[in-house]
């Protein structure tokens, strides 16, 4: 082979560059990531999962949920909204000024300029930082998913297909565990749900001396025969605990926003 060494060097360089780009660079960038701090409250982020939720992560993995669900909220942009906090000593002047100003959909510079104008008129205004994007419009999340949200995930199950909705902030938007259990057993309770039934995570059994407190409260068409009840197996409870542990709803330095509720 006349160009043997040339081919060898080319292969070394090609593989070396991919290794550097796909392995070394991410490890340098995020390999030493630690828990971070939530803006405004100063709490730690992310929260460590409970035991049940950690087991539930494996149930999620075993049942291939990742094939149809993603866990990553995308954010296309960010906008500022200016609201009046205190009208000040000359409320009429300020309200007249407010009527002439554009108050939402601003960039940070525009928002700062607007606040400057309002404070010259005597009022006091606040800026609200609001993430925008299709996922956020759908109500799947309030901000984009960032690396810190996945710190305790093993393995990382980001997902690539959205047959079902995104689950990155499920605990933040649908916190009712019983609803999730019913939906896993009988997805038909939700109109248009394309999810298959996960009946094998539940046990249909004869009611004993008293009905179980865990028994699902099912609508008539999905309920078992009289004298029987549907009880979730531990796997179902763990899966729901895991789903409810998925949160991406606090403001972080790398994904800032102004929380909706202020004290």
């Amino acid at each position, binding site marked *: 082979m*006349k*160009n043997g060494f040339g081919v060898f060097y080319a292969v070394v360089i090609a593989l070396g560059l991919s290794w550097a780009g796909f392995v070394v*660079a991410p490890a*340098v*960038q*995020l390999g030493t*990531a630690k828990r971070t701090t939530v*803006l*405004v*409250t*100063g*709490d730690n982020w992310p929260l460590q999962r409970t035991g049940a939720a950690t087991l539930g992560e494996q149930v999620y993995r075993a049942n291939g949920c990742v094939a149809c669900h993603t866990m990553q909220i995308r*954010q*296309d*942009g*960010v906008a*500022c909204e200016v609201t009046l906090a205190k009208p000040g000593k000359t409320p009429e002047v300020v309200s007249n000024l407010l009527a002439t100003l554009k108050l939402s959909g601003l960039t*940070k510079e525009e928002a700062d300029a607007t606040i400057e104008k309002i404070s010259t008129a005597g009022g006091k205004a606040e*800026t*609200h*930082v609001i993430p925008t994007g299709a996922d956020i419009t759908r109500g799947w999340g309030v901000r*984009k998913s*960032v*690396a810190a949200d996945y710190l305790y995930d093993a393995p990382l199950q980001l997902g690539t297909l959205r047959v079902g909705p995104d689950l990155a902030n499920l605990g933040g938007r649908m916190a009712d565990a019983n609803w999730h259990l019913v939906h896993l057993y009988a997805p038909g309770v939700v109109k248009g749900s394309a999810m298959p039934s996960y009946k094998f995570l539940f046990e249909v059994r004869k009611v004993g001396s008293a009905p179980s407190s865990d028994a699902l409260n099912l609508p008539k068409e999905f309920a078992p025969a009289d004298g029987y009840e549907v009880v979730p197996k531990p796997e179902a409870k763990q899966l729901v605990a895991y789903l409810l542990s998925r949160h991406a709803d606090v*403001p972080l*330095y*790398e*994904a*800032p*926003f*102004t*929380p909706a509720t*202020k*004290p």
Partner: protein
Amino acid sequence: MSEENQSCSLPSNAEPTATRSTVPMWIIVVTLVLVFIGFVFFDRHSGWFDAKVYAPYGSVEKVEAYQPGTGPNPMIVGKKNYEMFCASCHGSDGAGKVGQAPPLAGSELVITKGFHRLAMIPLEGLTGPIKVKGQEWNLIMAPMGAALPDADLAAVLTYIRNSWGNKAGEITADDIKTIRAEIGAHPVPIVGDKLMAMPE
């Protein structure tokens, strides 16, 4: 090009050989222009591989610009710490509990203009009779705030002074630091009369 074509059309029994030819100049120029455009785009949008920069923010400065407010909100941090350390005796509503702790809502010890006296209580503890809202209280409070960081204690006091109808202004971590330095390392519970003799 024509020379190469000739070299390929040798008699068919000859062994074919790989030949070298120079890359046309225009390919090199186009590649360099594409690389340049790529680097300009990278410079504008990458945040230079900073782990804290995500789209739609292109740089650390942009992320910094969109931060809501400055640092933790003392009313939220204060409420969290109040519920943890104070609420079991003083109550979540600041109304106090008979035989356990006097009220904080509307207390003349809390809604003072200065906060020197108020900050002394969680830092040093309090013992002996005091009068709160016309009622005599003779209990012991441990120095609950002595082990708290300055910022957290300041937040708790700010929360107390601005909740349940109280409106008495903010206390900063530096204020607590100053008062802590006055007290020294070993706090002793203050007696009620001595506290009232102190400046606000």
